[in-house]
């Protein structure tokens, strides 16, 4: 969490009044919440009245799918199909699995090897029976950015609504909900140095809505539950900070990412870079690589011992026996998915950190490969 955010959250903890109450303390809380609403709205390109605060993007995503589940059940307009992709966040992937089991029609559009939606297939999936199209803005593993505006245009052309989970993209690239023609947009606070457990569902004007949580008039009746004043203030401050430095931060992260990519590729033989190579198609701080013949959890833990924290797509780190579904959806062979490492560079990383990784990583890979039953081709 950013220092400025932490300070704002701590201060807001003193605003004990319930923002829904009419007394003075309550009014004070309401005022700071409305400021936060404005701050978030200006970061994502919508009016402040479109912002609904909640517990995070998982709730936002579930809310949107629930709205369309209802509409399909109620046969509002005869549309009964949802289109999404194979690389969405688990809060959509699992919701889709659940709904499919219940008999709902859902198509998951495949992606190419860089993780970008196959637009020809996407086009073929459109139709007058489509109720909702849901495509994430940027992927959490490979960092690939989707052509959301273009897909929104296709969705609207066939009369469907457009949702995008922008959680990973917020604060990394400009997000323009209205400009892109997105009807519903999800985000979480902690992805841009805001507090955990607070997020937003932004809802376009005049689009279908039904609360996911019933039982209160908060958020204009859009989401029941007592206001989490302090964290809402925090997400507002985080949004303002993210908006302020967006361009510079993007360029700084991309420079470090490229430094890391070229440094590791030069120092380690047989490395595979996952995702797209085009700067306009990748979240700037994300770098996903596979190291053939080396298993991801081992890499992760050896790096951890050197104070370097990364993620892996290996099954061994997931608790299941399945490697990353995102990497498999990109067509990566199982072994490369097991041997994948994702570096996430952020606001508090420096070029010194990158140099440190480039120094520490090659001997680790060499060592793991030496003890491996798998051998690189001579």
């Amino acid at each position, binding site marked *: 969490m950013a220092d400025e955010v932490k300070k704002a959250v701590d201060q807001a903890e003193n605003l004990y009044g319930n923002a829904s109450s009419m007394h003075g303390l309550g009014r004070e809380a309401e005022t700071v919440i409305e400021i936060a609403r404005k701050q978030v709205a200006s970061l994502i390109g919508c009016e402040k009245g479109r912002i609904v605060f909640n517990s995070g993007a998982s709730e936002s995503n579930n809310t949107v799918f629930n709205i369309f589940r209802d509409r399909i059940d109620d046969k509002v307009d005869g549309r009964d199909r949802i289109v999404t992709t194979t690389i969405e966040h688990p809060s959509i992937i699992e919701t889709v699995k659940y709904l499919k089991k219940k008999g709902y029609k859902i198509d998951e559009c495949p992606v190419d090897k860089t993780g970008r939606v196959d637009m020809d297939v996407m086009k073929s999936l459109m139709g007058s029976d489509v109720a909702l199209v849901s495509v994430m803005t940027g992927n959490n593993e490979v960092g690939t950015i989707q052509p959301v505006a273009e897909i929104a245009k296709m969705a609207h052309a066939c009369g469907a609504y457009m949702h995008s989970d922008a959680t990973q993209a917020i604060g990394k690239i400009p997000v323009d909900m209205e400009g892109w023609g997105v009807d519903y947009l999800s985000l979480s606070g902690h992805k841009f140095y805001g507090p955990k457990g607070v997020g937003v569902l932004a809802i376009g004007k005049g689009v279908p809505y039904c609360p996911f949580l019933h039982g209160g008039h908060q958020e204009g009746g859009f989401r029941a539950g007592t206001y989490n004043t302090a964290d809402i203030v925090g997400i507002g401050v985080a949004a303002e900070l993210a908006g302020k430095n967006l361009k510079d931060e993007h360029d700084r992260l991309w420079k470090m990412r490229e430094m890391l990519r070229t440094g590791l590729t030069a120092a380690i033989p047989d490395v595979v870079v996952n995702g797209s190579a085009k700067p306009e198609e990748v979240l700037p701080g994300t770098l996903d690589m596979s190291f053939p*013949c*080396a*298993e*991801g*959890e*081992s890499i992760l*833990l050896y790096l*951890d*011992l050197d*104070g*370097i*924290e990364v993620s892996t797509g*290996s*099954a*061994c*780190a997931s*608790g299941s*026996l399945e*490697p990353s579904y995102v990497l498999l959806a990109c067509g990566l062979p*199982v*072994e490369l998915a*097991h041997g994948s490492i994702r570096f996430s560079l952020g606001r508090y*990383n420096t070029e*010194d*950190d990158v140099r*440190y*990784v480039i120094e520490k990583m090659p001997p680790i890979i060499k060592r793991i490969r*030496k*003890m*491996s*039953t*798998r051998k690189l081709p001579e």
Partner: protein
Amino acid sequence: MSEQQSFMANWVYTPTVKEHFMHPHHLWDEDEDKDWKPDGVGEVGSLACGDQMRVGIKVKGDKIVDLKWLTYGCASAIASTSMMSDMAIGMTLDQAYHITPTSITNALGGLPEHKFHCSVLGDKALRAAIDDYLKKNNLPNTFQNSIARIICECKNVTDMQIEELVKSGKAKTLEDLQRLTNYGTGCGKCKAKVQDLFEDFKHIYNK
């Protein structure tokens, strides 16, 4: 990221696991050990689940006098095989054949529950190496049936039988297994257990 942190306190693994992971014992260094000729070699595991293990043993009389191993695997797999190597060297073939995943994980001070799976490869690879040694030397393999547990009491089907049928490829499906052993055709209580074992062995032997 470059900031050094205290890992001991909140590492997912015990200090013993960590120690074996950082400094694995009896690794098979294919450069330095290129003149090291094992008497028996066993390989198990699959890339589908992300781990694979190769164990080589040297045998004198009825004792394992040396053991080396390689793995494509996670920290649990590395640590449990390293621990297994410490345990097995000096053991008789009989003793080594009866090393269980539980005895390895206990020696490691425990593994997270979902990682237990990773420790079943070391002992399996060791057993495969012993099998290989006995076969190469035309010696009778009396161990194979000695560690069998009865899984289906009605039809007297053991875990070893299930393992062997999966390993040999004779039982590709549960239906095959039932046809070959008649498991579960009595009281039927064993069905879930057989199914679990079947899946485990398929996984272990990459079938």
